């Protein structure tokens, strides 16, 4: 039995390795992208940046009680205004930031009060 077990384990291991290899071949780019995304997400946690007249990420999901920071990287001031007036930042000049703590669950649609075609969304769960 030890021998058989060993053979079986070995076969199973070979199969597993083989499967992993195929999976890696097929999913390599996807996994890579996911890993990269995970790294970015960890680095930029709960931060919405403003670059080239757009909010990034355009949609962010956070837990109740989370503070989200909005940072403007443009050479033009922007603001962050919630559609139903839940929050409204003052005008943010270059590299200025505004933080808001989401105390309750819900979907918060916001836009730039100066350039209203810029829109974003925070989903609080």
């Amino acid at each position, binding site marked *: 039995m030890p021998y058989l077990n060993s053979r079986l384990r070995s076969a199973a291991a070979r199969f597993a390795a083989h499967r992993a290899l195929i999976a890696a071949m097929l999913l390599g780019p996807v996994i890579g992208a996911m890993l990269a995304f995970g790294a970015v997400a960890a680095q930029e946690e709960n931060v919405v940046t403003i670059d*080239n*007249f*757009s909010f990034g990420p355009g949609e962010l999901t956070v837990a109740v009680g989370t503070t989200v920071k909005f940072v403007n990287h*443009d*050479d*033009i*001031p922007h*603001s962050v*205004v919630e*559609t139903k007036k839940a929050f409204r930042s*003052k*005008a943010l*000049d*270059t590299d200025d930031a505004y933080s808001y703590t989401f105390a309750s669950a819900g979907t918060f*649609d*916001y*836009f730039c*009060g*100066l*350039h*209203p*075609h*810029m*829109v974003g969304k925070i989903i609080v769960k």
Partner: protein
Amino acid sequence: MAKKGLDDHGQGIGRREVLECMVWAGTGVLWAINGGVPHSVGLIGEAAAAESGGFTFLQMSDSHIGFDKKANPDALGTLREAIAKVKAMPMKPSFIIHTGDITHLSKPEEFDNADKVYGETGVQLHYVPGEHDMIDEGQGKAYLERYGKGSKGAGWYSFDDHGVHFIGLVNVVDLKAGGLGNLGAEQLAWLEADLKGKSNSTPIVVFAHIPLQVLYKEWGWGTEDGTQALALLKRFGSVTILNGHIHQLAQKVEGNMTFHTALSTAFPQPAPGSAPSPGPMVVPADQLRSMLGLSTVTMVQGNKPLAFVDKTLAG
């Protein structure tokens, strides 16, 4: 001397070509309107306008006092250069229309600096606010306290000069998510009442910060309810719409309406769709002044031509 962005070599531009014409780039364009049919008149028209003793005013825009980023570290300096050109004009303009974004951040010292430099011209200024003039703590209180005397609502008003009816509109407040510039129902009702009783032959000049027509929706370059304002103006024989905001020349003629956007004195912006987004465009230092400037608008009494000359700071 101003260069022409369009040159018809004296051939005359047909009405169809005029209607299709939208000039996005170029250092200068000169137009005249005669009997409701616009045509390019070139420098001859400019000379005729000057000789006729007609009435001239300037359009200046987007001075962004306080802006100090890479696209122009000294916006106050380039405004001073523009004002030096105004002071050197052989024919003193009757007044200056400023189509908004006087300041970059609505700070008191920015308004102070702008007032000081514009004041050197010795001519009256008629302002409308840009979105950059309404971002003080009071969301426009600072602008209205300074320039809003005699205006209604967020700062709109009208006045008459040399038989022309001038209307200053505000389309930079109470903006809606996902939308464009906004006039609002209250202002549109006021405009309708303001135009009531005016004869169709009264020349009309409307000025506002954001273009009233939609020039490029993706960048928010237009006014959501602008078509409602244009509908109220449709019956008039001569309507000129002056806007700023996009920091580049754009000309369009539709029937009796002429649309004109002015250069900024602070920094250029990219042509629509030519960059990932609007915003201050960095150009080589020796090219900056060819992309900044001001516009002279001349109206001649009698045969009612109206001519634009857009001059850059380089010329």
